[in-house]
């Protein structure tokens, strides 16, 4: 029972993370382009395509989680994306750059120190934990997908299984 409740909370929380993060980036395309460029990882020709695509990818993940469709797959993709985002923050930190991660809007050069980067990484690890939970326990109430769905009621079979 409590696993389903945690799964529901994890699903809705991770959905909110992606939707808010994506919407803030969509709202300010110039800032998003500057944020992506500031990482100094992509060639200039790829900066704009990535900046224009990533926010909508995040929103798609958020919507799928929100309606509870293909939760395990969406959580897996979320986990991969979070690992990439953690990786690029580590890369920026190790190269000694001082930038705003642009994680939830913002971006570009900023006065940040190791503690800021550590906090951002810790936050993303928290989100990663939500994604991993959903990979292991994808089923939750109020979900659309057949294999993402469950109810609060405890069926006799489950009692037997446990």
């Amino acid at each position, binding site marked *: 029972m409590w696993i389903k409740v945690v799964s529901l909370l994890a699903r809705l929380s991770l959905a909110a993370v992606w939707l808010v993060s994506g919407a803030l980036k969509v709202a300010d395309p110039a*800032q998003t382009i500057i944020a992506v460029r500031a990482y100094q990882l992509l060639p200039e020709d790829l900066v704009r395509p990535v900046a*224009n695509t990533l*926010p909508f990818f995040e929103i798609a993940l958020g919507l799928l989680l929100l309606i509870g469709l293909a939760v395990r797959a969406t959580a897996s993709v979320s986990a991969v994306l979070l690992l990439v985002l953690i990786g690029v923050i580590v890369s920026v930190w190790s190269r000694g750059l*001082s930038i705003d991660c642009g994680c939830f809007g913002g971006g*570009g050069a900023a006065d940040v120190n190791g503690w800021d980067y550590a906090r951002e990484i810790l936050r993303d690890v928290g989100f990663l934990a939500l994604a991993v939970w959903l990979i292991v326990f994808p*089923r939750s109430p109020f979900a659309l*997908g*057949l294999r993402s769905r469950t109810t609060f009621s405890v069926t006799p079979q489950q009692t037997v299984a446990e």
Partner: protein
Amino acid sequence: MSSKNKYNPQPESSRSTYILGGLAVLVIAVLVIGGVIWQSNRSKPRNDGYGGVQNSEVQVALQADGVVLLGKPDAATTVDLFEDPMCPYCAELENKNGQELAQSIDDGKVAVRYHVLNFLDRLSASGDYSTRAVAASECVAETGDAVAYSAFHAALFSPANQPKENGSSDHTNEELAQIARDAGASDAAAQCITTGASVEQARAHAEAGRQALAASGATGTPAVVKDGTVIDALSNENWVSQL
């Protein structure tokens, strides 16, 4: 079906779930693809391919207050544009509206008063890149070559040339002079940039520009001001055509 389902029975797969799920996937796909296209269009250069100012009737002059005025003498309206050569948002504005603005200048619809500022000196590797770029802008403006000024201004803000904030390097005066030459500036302009002859006056002009920016009510760069009103140029991609 896997054996797991024996212990974890699920609702029967139903036609309505597949229809709803398919619809949801379709809606999300349309939203994402449409969104990416919309976002790409919204931030891409407008009038791409036009380039810089090319009308020989357009004039450029360094005015007494350090402002560079670029436009036809009978331009219909005048806007003030505040920007720092280090400012990435100014580069985005130049990328998005620069060519469109050049065409409006050529057509005599608008003249631009460029206030080139230096408050981002502290974020440049050399510590005075913005000031030296302001000086370079003034060196080119003083030659009265509007086509070269427009091209040099665009080059300063291109991703290839603009130094990164907190970056490890920027451009020496010699490199700035070369960028100016590549933009078609005269030897006199290049000489002026290389020797740093305009740097001290540029510092004073940039400070005057900073005060004018503060007085305009704008909160940062880039700022476009028309008739005392700040125009939201970064969020409204149609601002040039609406002048």
